[in-house]
């Protein structure tokens, strides 16, 4: 009886604690926003710029998040090395950009610049996809039926191998992307002046996501992937080549990540061997946020995370007088990750995968 009473007390304590946590988080968000807005320190233009940069960043997160979410959907595994696949795209794009710049093509005309970006993305995809398949073959496939933590640890290992392979191949330095003048021109859109780069990033991200969505929903292979995500054994009994579906999933994720690597590096104009690590973790956050295993969820989660990260520090923290709130943007992102995992692990759109089997 005594033991039972103690357990009850701790249970109540935990519940109280969780409620207190919710209240604190909501209070910080509401009061901080109110204080910031009332201070009137920021003009409407500042806010709209923050929204646009959040949209750009968010669409890149969404592209990476798709790879996490699809692999998780099909294998129930966190592909920890996905951020490093993204880095390979960034490096490939860099070397192509340098090459195109040295022959004078990169900045020859707006059309040449656009074409250059297309070539960079194409090469990045051509590098990142075989790399992802190699990682899958070496580090994941042999562990497909092992307990959950085993492939996760192997993925962490793969992540380190890739990071330090880049370091060995390309050196520890930070490479600056050659600047593309056309991308920094401003376009007047609906009363706002937006960089060509932002438009390009958002447009190509949307194009790729629509393409992916159509592939998964309309093609035979897409149906096979969805069937395997649903139930591997039954799908195999229906004559679906499970292995091919899994490999295709990895390839699709790598295509998105390779393209995202180029777009991200164009945005931040630099690349080094750890480039992919933080965006990788954040994209995972986005995937969880949207409901892992859920493709539209990953897109939504990415866009949402981009906004929170872009607007959040200023909106929530500035009102409290926190010094240099932008240093804390990753804190906001990771806090959101933890909060989502705790309070709504099924994400905004809910987990498509039956939770019972997870």
């Amino acid at each position, binding site marked *: 009886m005594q033991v039972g009473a103690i357990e009850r007390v701790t249970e109540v304590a935990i519940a109280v604690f969780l409620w207190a946590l919710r209240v604190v988080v909501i209070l910080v968000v509401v009061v901080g926003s109110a204080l910031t807005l009332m201070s009137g320190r920021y003009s409407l233009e500042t806010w709209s710029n923050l929204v646009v940069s959040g949209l750009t960043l968010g669409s890149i997160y969404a592209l990476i998040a798709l790879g996490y979410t699809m692999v998780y959907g099909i294998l129930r595994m966190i592909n920890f090395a996905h951020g490093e696949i993204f880095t390979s795209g960034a490096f490939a794009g860099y070397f192509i950009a340098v090459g195109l710049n040295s022959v004078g093509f990169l900045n020859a005309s707006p059309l040449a610049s656009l074409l250059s970006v297309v070539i960079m993305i194409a090469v990045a995809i051509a590098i990142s996809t075989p790399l992802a398949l190699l990682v899958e073959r070496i580090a994941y496939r042999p562990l497909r039926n092992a307990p959950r933590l085993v492939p996760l640890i192997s993925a962490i290992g793969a992540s*380190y*191998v890739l*990071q330090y*392979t880049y370091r060995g*191949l390309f050196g520890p330095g930070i490479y600056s992307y050659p600047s593309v003048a056309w991308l920094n021109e401003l376009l007047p859109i609906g009363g706002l002046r937006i960089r060509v780069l932002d438009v390009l990033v958002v447009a190509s991200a949307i194009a790729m996501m629509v393409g992916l969505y159509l592939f998964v929903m309309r093609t035979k292979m897409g149906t096979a992937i969805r069937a395997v995500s649903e139930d591997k054994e039954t799908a195999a009994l229906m004559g679906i080549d499970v292995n091919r579906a899994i490999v295709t999933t990895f390839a699709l994720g790598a295509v998105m990540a390779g393209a995202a690597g180029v777009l991200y590096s164009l945005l931040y104009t630099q690349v080094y061997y750890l480039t992919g690590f933080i965006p990788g*973790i954040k994209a995972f956050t986005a995937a969880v946020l949207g409901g892992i295993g859920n493709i539209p969820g990953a897109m939504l989660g990415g866009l949402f995370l981009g906004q929170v990260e872009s607007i959040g520090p200023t909106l929530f923290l500035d009102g409290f007088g926190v010094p240099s709130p932008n*240093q*804390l943007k990753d804190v906001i992102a990771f806090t959101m990750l933890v909060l989502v*995992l*705790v309070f709504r692990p099924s994400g905004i759109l809910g987990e498509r995968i039956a939770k019972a089997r997870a």
Partner: protein
Amino acid sequence: MTRALAGPGAATVAPRVAFDWRPVVRIGAIGGAVSLYLCLVGIVPVFNQRPLIIGVISLGQTALVLSLFATGFVATRKLTGTAGARFLAGGLAGGIAGAVLSALVLVGSVVPLRNVFLNASPELYDLLTFGLGTSGFWAPLVTGIALGALAGGFSLLRPRLRRSLYVGFLSVVIMGLFAGLIRTPLLSSPLENLARLLFAPEGLTPVGAVITFAVAVALNEYRRTNDLGRRYRAVPSDRRWTVIAPAAVVLSIAVLILPQTLGSFFAQVIAIVALYVMMGLGLNITLGLAGLLDLGFVAFFAVGAYTVGLLTSTGEYGIAQWSFWAAVPFAVFFAMLFGAFLGLPILGIRGDYLAIATMGFGEIIRILAGSDLLKPLLGGPRGITNIPKPFDVPPDHWLAGPNQIYYIALAGAALIAFIAWRLRGSHLGRAWLAIREDEDVAEATGINLVQTKLLAYILGAAFAGLGGAVFAALVGSIFASSIQLIVSINVVALIIVGGMGSIPGVVVGAIFLIGLPELFREFSEYRYLFYGFALIAMMRFRPEGLLPSRVTLRELHVAENEQPPDAAEGALVAQEEAG
């Protein structure tokens, strides 16, 4: 499987086993890719600066030779054909691998590969062609064929002889690697002349290599003919302590006097190893017993380190200037408090989510510690400095410098090992094991999941805090940049490599993953590359770790054969020797 070699000749020599060249070509291509990787990632050129046997071979060349030789050996391993077929297959596979390197030299002479790959330098080409430059592009090809064929011949040798040769070559490599470290203490001992014969300042002398090889082979033969392992297993299990106890006493004494006999560099290294052993044992409770993968270990490490820093520092940010000993209980207490605070909300979630959530905590703590927000308290990126050592002794005292940290960490490790050992068989320990095996079943048997997990998590946090406290005292300062995810990964990796849930495993893991890289600072660039490969390889080939606990071993191998644990252990050893 056996596809005959297409062609008119194949049918007429049917009685002979057909020579299946496809896997040989495949292995040759893989070997070529591995060799190319070793070159471009920089292992071959960087390791080339360090001689293995002076004037004979460098470490970088050893890596290449091993890779080409292994290609030939793997290609012929499963072959059942005649001696000729073996030489042919080995030569073919080695030749393909060598051809890849030849192609690298050829391509590199035309295309400026160096613009992309830093290591594709003229020095690398010279190394590959034995100094002939690009005109000697054929050299790797010929070397590959020769080494591959040699490996094919090697597979013809009797297994026992082969094993002896392995041991001999491995000993030479190890002696060459550690030459500098072994030489220095030997020079100031009665064995000075031996040291001068075996080692030169840069590495092993040719004479030294031959002697090492001969001694290693002889020792191995002695060990095999007398089969010490079998004799030990023949001792009835209730009498085994007569063998173990003296060995344990000798080992303990050796561990205790170790820092006194070695130089200050060594003392620093073993202090770090001891620190990681301590943290590894702490996380071992969380991960090894309860099965919670905690990647935010470094968060509690930071809490411990900053607590000690704030309470003891005589510098700008110190608030109390206490002694280390007064601060440690607070460090552990605050770490536990943090563990409870962070653990309470997240312990309800699934295993792999938990890993990511805890990693998120680690990052949050790292960013906060270095931020302007907490700068008035924690010093921002410049951190807290002037943390005094626990024992204030003169420099020539036996407790001076890192030595005291070594003993403190050792005592901490012993304490944690004792707690872990006592907990293991307790009610709580068995509840943890049950959760690790299957959460749903554990809950059905009446275990309160969140509370039981929370206890494991808080205990892990306490030991992480203790580790952080000792770390702060060892380094004398604590910065935000010391709180990297890599600390968490280091601790997880050493547990996994050593063997989850096993105390000797943690020690072995710490020596391999922390001690060795500290000793080879010149190769520190490749440390994490090695970590990554080690994690993948362990998961694929030996998920139970190098020195698994007996329980884990039994769990993992019980499906294969329902033997008592001793027999299973013997089977594992045999399996290893066959492989």
